């Protein structure tokens, strides 16, 4: 009975856990309604084994992806999430950027 309990606990608990580190919300100028623009999103991640990594370029890549989706408009109200998904001696760092792309808005 104890062995079955241990086995079921192991199977149940080996599922990945996650942790949200921060959520930053930028300013909303120029003020526009949600319906006057298009919601854009960029998500990038970095797989790390035992913490050995020398660069954090995945954030710059997310930023570049976000800018590419709104090349001729204003990016308003950027929401940035930094999180980690845990794993076996490794983890995945993730950054998610959401914003409203408003075209032909005055600065």
């Amino acid at each position: 009975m104890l062995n079955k309990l241990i086995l079921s606990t192991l199977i149940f608990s080996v599922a990945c856990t996650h942790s949200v580190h921060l959520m930053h919300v930028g300013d909303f100028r120029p003020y526009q309604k949600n319906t006057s623009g298009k919601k854009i999103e960029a998500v990038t991640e970095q797989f790390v084994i035992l913490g050995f990594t020398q660069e954090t370029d995945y954030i710059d890549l997310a930023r570049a992806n976000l800018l590419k989706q709104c090349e001729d408009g204003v990016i308003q109200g950027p929401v940035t999430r930094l999180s980690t998904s845990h794993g076996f001696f490794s983890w995945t760092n993730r950054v998610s950027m959401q914003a409203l792309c408003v075209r032909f808005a005055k600065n």
Partner: protein
Amino acid sequence: MKLVVLVSLLIFSVSCAHVRSVSQTSVPKKRGQVVKAEVKNNIFFLFNFNTNYLNELTTQLQDQCQKGSIEGILTKDVMVTYFPIIFHREHITAEGYCVE
């Protein structure tokens, strides 16, 4: 013994970069000149006695954009561990657009 020393040296020669925070502000339509600022702070044995180096960030940005406003700033705070406990470096970068 030699193998242990070699493996330890290999492990300690690889740094570990960890992002502590990231933030960004609204990005303007006109994205001309990119301005960048960065500051570094070396921390030995986890002792750090002042945070004045952070004030240089805005000064560096303003020096590059004296006749305009700086918008669409992405700020990244990274902690790099070179030798655990002994030597860390805090690396903060801010990148934005100069709008004149």
